[in-house]
């Protein structure tokens, strides 16, 4: 693979230039202090406290190491090694990547870019705004943010989420009031424009769907420049009783990107959440997803795909926490790995005492297309209730010769058969997207990326 891909995890880090982890931590503490001294966007007291708690937690815990079970397969050495500076506030060059989005909020380096956004025609009951504007605006809006931001399901031990919180100043806030319906998807585009130096931004998304609301939201990470950068994103989703929410998360960063993200969801009674984490880019990525089914009868679909080639590395740690009875969760994670890429999946399912009649299924299928590519898969079931159904299964390996022969016996050339089977691995996941327009758009991307039965590099900048 060409381009400025991040250092491989197995490379000896720091042979020429040693950055001690403690110094790297200090770098971000200093950035925080400068940010706080600068007024931090003239934040209200509760937000200043939230940030202070975030940096304190980060400074206390420091960067994770591969000696920690949760980080066994993913070294954060590249994050320590690069001296990332705060991403510039100015908007980067060029238009923002688009698949014909009509409703869109665009953020550049985590900051809202109203001139690139389009929010006309939002249906009644759908309130959308930038965090910075809401905080500065009417007291009702600020109170809403205060009630939800960082209050939900963000685990205390997630140091990167804590670091994001330390710098939280802007971001997307989407509030669907009771019964509101957003028929067309709302796109939230987080674009990075590092401006020539390795830079870090901390994008934030808060989505709150009140009772019986229904929406599809697309969370899309792209870049406006080819330069190393670090995206440290946090998304919080609150799904109220009977609400039905779909979140399509498209991580389409450049190969020079380090992408750290966490998604935290909490669901109420009889709610439905479909979460589709799709990894199409970034040289190095880590995504922690925690889902709490916090009301009886909640239903979760966690349906993700990672396409990795070259030296790409992607690590998913997911937690599905059945805290109430009669919940259903289906987790499908497919990986297609080529080149010397590495995919890591750790899927933990917790069934709390009293979460009776939980029905949980988890699969992680990895298609490994080259000798050097590697996949790791670890299911973890923790079941504390007795009347539950939990199944899990993982596979990894090359294309099945039986499948290849079957397709050949129907007239397809071996290369056509390989391409079709590889495409099917991704198509199986996209098939579960509810919105047909999104599904079709992503299907085109999938075909392009898996043409000829191999994972090709992310497309050049749009």
């Amino acid at each position, binding site marked *: 693979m060409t381009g400025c891909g991040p250092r491989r995890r197995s490379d000896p880090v720091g042979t020429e230039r040693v950055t001690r982890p403690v110094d790297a931590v200090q770098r971000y503490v200093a950035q925080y202090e400068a940010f706080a001294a600068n007024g931090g966007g003239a934040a209200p007291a509760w937000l200043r406290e939230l940030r202070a708690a975030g940096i304190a937690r980060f400074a206390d815990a420091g960067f994770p190491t591969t000696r920690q079970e949760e980080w066994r397969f993913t070294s954060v050495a590249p994050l320590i090694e690069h001296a990332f500076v705060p991403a510039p506030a100015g908007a980067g060059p060029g238009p923002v990547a688009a698949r014909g989005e009509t409703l869109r909020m665009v953020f550049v380096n985590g900051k809202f870019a109203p001139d690139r956004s389009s929010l006309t025609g939002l249906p009644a009951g759908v309130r959308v705004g930038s965090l910075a504007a809401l905080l500065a605006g009417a007291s009702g809006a600020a109170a809403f943010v205060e009630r939800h931001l960082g209050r939900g399901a963000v685990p205390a031990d997630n140091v990167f989420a804590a670091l994001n919180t330390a710098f939280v100043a802007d971001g997307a806030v989407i509030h669907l009031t009771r019964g509101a319906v957003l028929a067309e998807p709302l796109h939230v585009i987080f674009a990075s424009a590092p401006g020539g130096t390795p830079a870090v931004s901390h994008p934030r998304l808060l989505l709150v769907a009140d009772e019986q609301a229904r929406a599809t939201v697309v969370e899309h990470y792209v870049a406006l420049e080819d330069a190393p950068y670090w995206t440290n994103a946090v998304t919080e989703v609150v799904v109220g009783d009977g609400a039905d929410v779909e979140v399509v998360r498209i991580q389409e960063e450049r190969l020079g990107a380090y992408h750290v993200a966490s998604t935290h969801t909490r669901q109420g009674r009889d709610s439905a959440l479909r979460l589709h984490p799709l990894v199409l880019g970034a040289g190095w990525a880590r995504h922690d997803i925690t889902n709490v089914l916090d009301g009886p009868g909640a239903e979760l679909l966690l349906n993700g795909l990672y396409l990795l080639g070259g030296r790409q590395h992607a690590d998913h740690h997911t937690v599905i926490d059945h805290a109430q009875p009669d919940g259903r969760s289906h987790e499908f994670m497919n990986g297609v790995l080529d080149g010397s890429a590495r995919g890591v999946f750790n899927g933990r399912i917790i069934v709390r005492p009293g979460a009776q009649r939980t029905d949980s299924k988890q699969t992680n299928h990895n298609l490994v297309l080259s000798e050097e590519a590697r996949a790791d898969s670890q299911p973890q079931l923790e079941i504390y209730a007795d009347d539950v159904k939990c199944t899990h299964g993982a596979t990894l390996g090359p294309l099945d010769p039986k499948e290849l022969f079957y*397709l*050949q*016996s129907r*007239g397809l*050339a*071996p290369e056509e058969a390989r391409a079709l089977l590889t495409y099917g691995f991704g198509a199986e996941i996209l098939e579960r997207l509810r919105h047909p327009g999104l599904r079709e758009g992503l299907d085109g991307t999938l075909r392009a990326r898996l043409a000829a039965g191999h994972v090709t590099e992310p497309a050049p900048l749009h």
Partner: protein
Amino acid sequence: MTPAARTPMLEISDLHASVEGKEILRGIDLTVNAGEVHAIMGPNGSGKSTLAQVLAGHPAYAVTGGSIRYQGKDLLELDPEERAREGVFLAFQYPVAIRGITNAYFLRSALNAVRKHRGQPELDPLEFLDLLAEKLKSIDSDDGLMNRPVNDGFSGGEKKRNEILQMAVLEPRLAILDETDSGLDIDALRTVAGAVDKLRRPDNATVVVTHYQRILNYITPDFVHVLSAGRIVLSGGKELALELEARGYDWVRAEAAV
């Protein structure tokens, strides 16, 4: 007179084949003409399925001797996909599931590969749907399986029905049905076998590989051959199948051993 009428569809001469170094077929001779239905019967392990797989070109089976001519050409020279495009079709005993690919998409890909080979224009999705509707009707089937991934989660009957639908769409010259009756209850068998019978034409030929006679109640064979230890040890008309049903295979083996 057309060449098809002069040349046998399939001529197998002294065919030897082995898998993982073990010889399974030990000198098969068989000629199938257009318009004919041949049943290949025999006990488990006699080599029936091996013969079917060798005809389709499965790479795990090595042909160690003899020849197969198909429409006058050397079949063994052709890759599996070339055989398919030339009109050879194997209905699998265990159809394979293909994740993420819908039946309709798969069928169109396969049909277009065959059409391209024949110099016919490829069909776009709408043209294909028209053809599919017609084919479904021709075998008394519906489109309930079309938007599901190929064979994924299909019942045994659905899988076999799906094989026959592929056969209807691809219009092979030579169809080989490998234990299509296995795992089917009597209703599913009637449906599937009835569909095969509807696809019989004077210019195509069918080889029915089966352990049991019952499928032959619906697809009447012109010839019945009994395979034992890798050779055809007995051939006859359709009444031979009934005799095998009544008497089992032991007496054939006993006679063959003499």
